[in-house]
């Protein structure tokens, strides 16, 4: 099983209308080459699951600027004025999710959980449309799993089998997104031979990675 593909081969899997989860936090730990390739291909109507929309010229923000995205499920859009503009103009649907809830919803999808109960959002508009439950006298919201068709992630060191090591603050949502998508494409900052990453230090096991691009 050779998982190493060209950008073109990897992009064959990405179609209009898909839900795509992308790793990264304000552009750090984001697969920029994959992002650019999606723009070049002109993919449309993507539902984006990501922490934020980064910046107009960096990270996933470029998808917003280039109108590849019709909906974002996201915790923060403040660093990309274009996201707010499109939202206010009715061109882009924005579902805001507290960052910790976003992490748990994606994790739940990857871990086969039907949902999780979080106190975050109680007493706020985040409650709207959600089931509230009281456990031990404390209120919680039932938050449901969030799954994607494709995850695009970035690894600092990736071996040819797909084991991943993330350097410093680049890990963020990459580990979670990899567990919650039908197909996972990783952009390797550094591609190494199988065995070069100590098995104890692997952060995303190869089983989650389908396609590797350099």
């Amino acid at each position: 099983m050779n998982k190493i593909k060209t950008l073109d081969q990897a992009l064959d899997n990405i179609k209009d209308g898909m839900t795509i989860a992308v790793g990264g936090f304000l552009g750090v730990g984001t697969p920029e080459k994959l992002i650019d390739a999606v723009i070049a291909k002109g993919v449309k109507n993507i539902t984006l699951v990501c922490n934020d929309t980064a910046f107009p010229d960096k990270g996933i923000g470029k998808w917003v600027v280039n109108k590849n995205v019709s909906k974002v499920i996201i915790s923060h859009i403040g660093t990309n004025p274009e996201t707010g503009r499109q939202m206010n103009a009715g061109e882009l649907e924005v579902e805001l999710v507290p960052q910790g809830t976003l992490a748990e919803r994606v994790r739940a999808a990857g871990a086969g959980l039907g949902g999780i109960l979080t106190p975050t959002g109680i007493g706020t508009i985040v409650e709207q449309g959600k089931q509230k439950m009281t456990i031990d006298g404390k209120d919680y919201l039932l938050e449901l799993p969030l799954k994607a068709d494709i995850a695009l992630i970035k690894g600092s060191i990736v071996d040819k089998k797909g084991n991943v090591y993330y350097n410093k603050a680049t890990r963020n949502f990459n580990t979670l997104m990899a567990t919650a998508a039908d197909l996972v494409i990783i952009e390797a900052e550094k591609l190494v031979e199988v065995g070069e990453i100590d098995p104890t230090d692997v952060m995303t096991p190869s089983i989650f990675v389908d396609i590797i691009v350099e």
Partner: protein
Amino acid sequence: MIQDKDRKREVIVKRVANELKDGNLVNLGIGLPTQVVNYIPEGVDVLLHSENGFVGLGPTPKPGEEDKDIVNAGSQPASHVTGAAYFDSAMSFAIIRGGHLDVTVLGALQVDQKGNLANWMIPGKMVPGMGGAMDLVVGAKRVIVAMEHTAKGEAKILKQCNLPLTAAGEVDMIVTDMGVIQVTPEGLVLTEIAPETTVEEVISMTEAELIISKDLKVMDV
């Protein structure tokens, strides 16, 4: 009442810094709260949490010494201290939500008598999203709001917030350029007053009802 903008900010961050205890794990929000780090008293060893995935946030690196893989939660170049630890976003918010954070310091658009906080959106005008703020305010053991007392002369400490809430009843303490206010079951208690400031000034700049502490002190800033 302090007039100088820089002095106002200094008063706030200095006073907040004095709240931090040795061994505390602390999250400092973007903007003003970030500067608290510059005033932490000597001998007080505080570990800073960064939402994007580590504990042990260090000082801003010198130009040319930035590491592209280390940024703070506002995406500015950052560093880590010796003994830091990186992790993923699930762990980052497990730390926050799970009650492992001793103190979170955040700015506010509005705070009210019940400890309600609004700091993430002005409908139709500014909608940056809540980011990690809702989790931070719900999860941290202590929530300190650090902000200028008013915005363009308008009160921000209200009887009741009218902006969408970040969380209900979670604020413990408000530190401004005019004083220190504790959120108690009885209401807001002014426990400290800023230098050059009168109680009347504070009351006039505050929409919420204020209980003036019998032990009212001048802020040590």
